[in-house]
């Protein structure tokens, strides 16, 4: 259940990337992947490579997905910027 919560928070935060200039690797879809993967991997790591079940899921699980999602999107953004610098659009 916590896995679902992490992913949901990641996708929720991804919606706000529309306000950020589109320098993400693969654009808005890349940002989506970054948010989903980032939130899940971060949650998974801080829980010692386990995913808490329905009874062990709480508000904290929703909160802990935020840094993961932001980190994931930041990584995708950084890759995008780097690619733009290496291969500037004609």
């Amino acid at each position, binding site marked *: *259940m*916590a896995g*679902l*919560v992490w*992913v*949901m*928070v990641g*996708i*929720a*935060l*991804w*919606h*706000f990337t*529309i*306000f950020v200039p*589109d320098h993400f690797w*693969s*654009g*808005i*879809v890349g940002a*989506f992947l970054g948010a989903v993967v980032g939130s899940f991997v971060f949650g998974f790591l801080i829980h010692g490579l386990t995913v808490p*079940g*329905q*009874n062990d*899921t*709480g*508000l*904290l*699980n*929703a909160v802990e*997905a935020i840094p993961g999602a932001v980190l994931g999107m930041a990584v995708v953004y950084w890759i995008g910027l780097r690619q733009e610098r290496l291969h500037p*659009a*004609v």
Partner: protein
Amino acid sequence: MSERRRSLFVLLLVLGLIAGSVFAVSSRDTKLGLDLQGGVQLIYEGKPTAQQPQVTQEALQRSLDIMRERVDAFGVAEPELLLSGGNQIEVNLPGVEDAERAAQQVGSTAQLFFYDWEANILDEDCQTNPDENAAEKRPLTGFYRAVQAAAKCEPQSDRNNNAADAPRFYAFNETSKQPLNNGQPSESRQAALTDLSDEERANAEVVEVPEGILVVRDEKPDADAPDPDRFWIAEDNPALSGTDIKNPEQNFDQQGGGEPIVTFDFTDKGREAFQNITRRIAQRGQDNALPGTNPAAGSQHFAIVLDNELVSAPTINYVEYPDGIDSTTGAQISGSFTISSAQDLAKILEIGALPIRLELISRSQVSASLGAQALDQGVLAGAVGFLIVALFLIVFYRVLGVIAVLAMGIYGLYFYALVELIPIVLTLPGIAGLILTLGVAADANIVIFERVKEELRAGRSVGQAISAGYKKGLTAIADANVVTFLVAFILFILATAGVKGFALTLGVGVILSLFTAVLATQAMLYAMRGTALLRSRAALGARDSKPIRFDFIGRSRWFFSMSGVILLICAIALAVQGLNFGIDFEGGTRITAPLERQASVEEVRDAIGINNAEIQTVDGEELGENVVQISAEELAPNQVDEVENALQREFGLADNASTESIGASFGQSVADNAIKAIIASLIIISIYITLRFQWKFAVPVLIALAHDLLITGGVYALLGREVTASTVAALLTILGFSLYDTIVVFDRVRENIPRMPNAAFSQIYNRSMSEVIIRSLATSFCAGLPILALMLFGGETLQDFAFALLVGTLSGTYSSVFIAGPVLTHWKEREPVYRARESRIRGQFGGVVPAYAVATAGAPVDVAPSESRRRRERLTTPPDPTRGVSSDEFEEMVRDLGVEEEKPSAPEPAGARSAGDRPAGGRRARSRAAKAGDSGDKPKKPPNRRHGRPR
């Protein structure tokens, strides 16, 4: 074939099928499912036994055949037995009222063994003492104690083992010592834990009973007594088995007071073995008899054990049978039988034992009254759904709407005929599927009718508009219906029983609705062309109206933000409250009982004595006013009986109670199948969208679907609504519905991309959305109407289903317009071609991209679409004589021929001038403009072949 002939042929076909359908409907009976007519449903999971260490398909099929023979022998009308879910067998027994007896009749393994009892009984030190009479021994009280005692014994690895020729593992609750898995053994420690819930597993203790050691439940004192909590420990050295007997029959004991018994004959081998074993028992009895003792008291015992339960242990009188019993005239099993249990045992023995053990993982019993009520509610919801959809179509599309309603009526008739011809067992979820397909059928008509209206507004005649509407609308309808059909197919393959019925009707309905909503309505309209009815545009609901000019992409950031906030709320609700999984997933027992006298929840709780049970009163016209529903952890059959007896005693039962018991392992398989179905649907949908559109169109579709599913899940968490197997079916249907909308939108985007070679992608999307927004809203509204009918009139099961659909449909409409489209736009705009267009447009319009494409000098907004489809036609295909030119097309021609340039032109925008002397527009437009400039006054051949074609 000419259009007129084709229409005539289709109309004749429709009429012929109507006649056939009426005949089929009037001559056949509808097969109703258990939920609509009452009955018992049993779902078994195959478990390995020592004799059959693996549950193979062959073993399951043999078990199914044996079970079918048993059901036939018990005389159940129209039973349904089928293999499902890999290792499950589903048994549907309409009209049967006693679920426990049915389970006993159908699913008992029926492994019968005969033992020399004194020679096999073990004491607490695991020792046999054949010289000690069994009457002087006492069985152990408590199953846990007995299994623990058996676990201490050394394995008896001799060749005689049969019922226990491998170690067996029993699971218990570590604290309460209560048996888990209904006290049934498993073949390994791991298997003993597999079917337990997480909570049970955490507190489970598994005890191993070695090979060759049996734990046998003691004999019942009388037929009506509950199963005794006393057990014998014995060695597994049977003298005979069920295969050594023949011709078992229920009879009455002529010597012992006329009690019901089972008589049988032995096979030749069995007769000899029986004589030998009874001789040995008699001789041992004689050897151990003290002088002067009564032979009846000193004689030793011969035990008959069926499925590890002692049926009876008669004495072999050593005075009467010193040389054993000659069984040429047969033998008998006497025990604690009622007439019916003796009859059942005789039949089961006659048919034979099952090759594998079957564990009952789900048992439901629906009373006939509850079934009748469900049927009434389903029919009412269907009728209301039909009426409101019909009303909507007639109000909005006038004559076209009447034709669509006629087609819906024909669709209903065809569907009913198919239900009876195939035959499809009509269940409550199946009725839901049928009602939903009414929405699908109406959606197809809406897509076409909106297209017809567009053509009328563009200046075509009614006849031409109808012709063009069907041609252009068909692609979107075909794509959307194929996707819905694929989802239904996946549901049918992967889902559990109830959901399968829904998937079948949805799939059949989608195909059928394509025929009635597209072909039949087209034929009817073609036949009516030129009549007074179709002459007026107003009669078709096509009033002149201004197109909607909303900046969908510009405003999308606010809609994105709204979605983000909604999803955050849903995620928090999911984290804090979690999902309220029903017994379909968690396992448990639900009893719905109509009481004669009114009772409060607390009174019912006190009466049944289950403290953690969830009790609520429910409404039910057919069942009466005092209906209570009790939900609790999984109860054993005898516990269900105790609850029913308590209710009968305290409040009186107005009718049979309906019960549903679902094991945790069944719930797990429902959940697993749901996840598989969702993943498979998403994969298939992605592949289809990629093939029909582009792979870049598939990704936004998946994101929009994830959005819809998560929001629906979040709303369930937020409201604490119960998640059932129906909810899963609804979630999967949402995939189909959400896609319908998205495909309608994307189809227009696909159509507009080649039409607008100079526009930015955001402009193409805005234009496409403005063209289809009414259509999109109308299809969603129309799909929502039958769902609303289900919610208002469908009863408890259908309401639950409809709620998920309603949330999903709303979310699906929203996500198609404001999530899928903008994601596609943002993604496509990264492509070099659209990036170049955008930068050119920004240059022309002072750094901004107008929401809608604006025609600039030398570069029209629209060009004629590609002719590739036309080229695939036969060379000999004659030109369509009915085809005319719409006013829009005429303007296009004028623009393409350069006539427009001779008009006094508007001042060139500053942006365009600042871009240099280069003419505005794309590469091809600039090339055209350059050629026109080079040629001076020389007339040029129009570049578009279509416009040069004689009409």
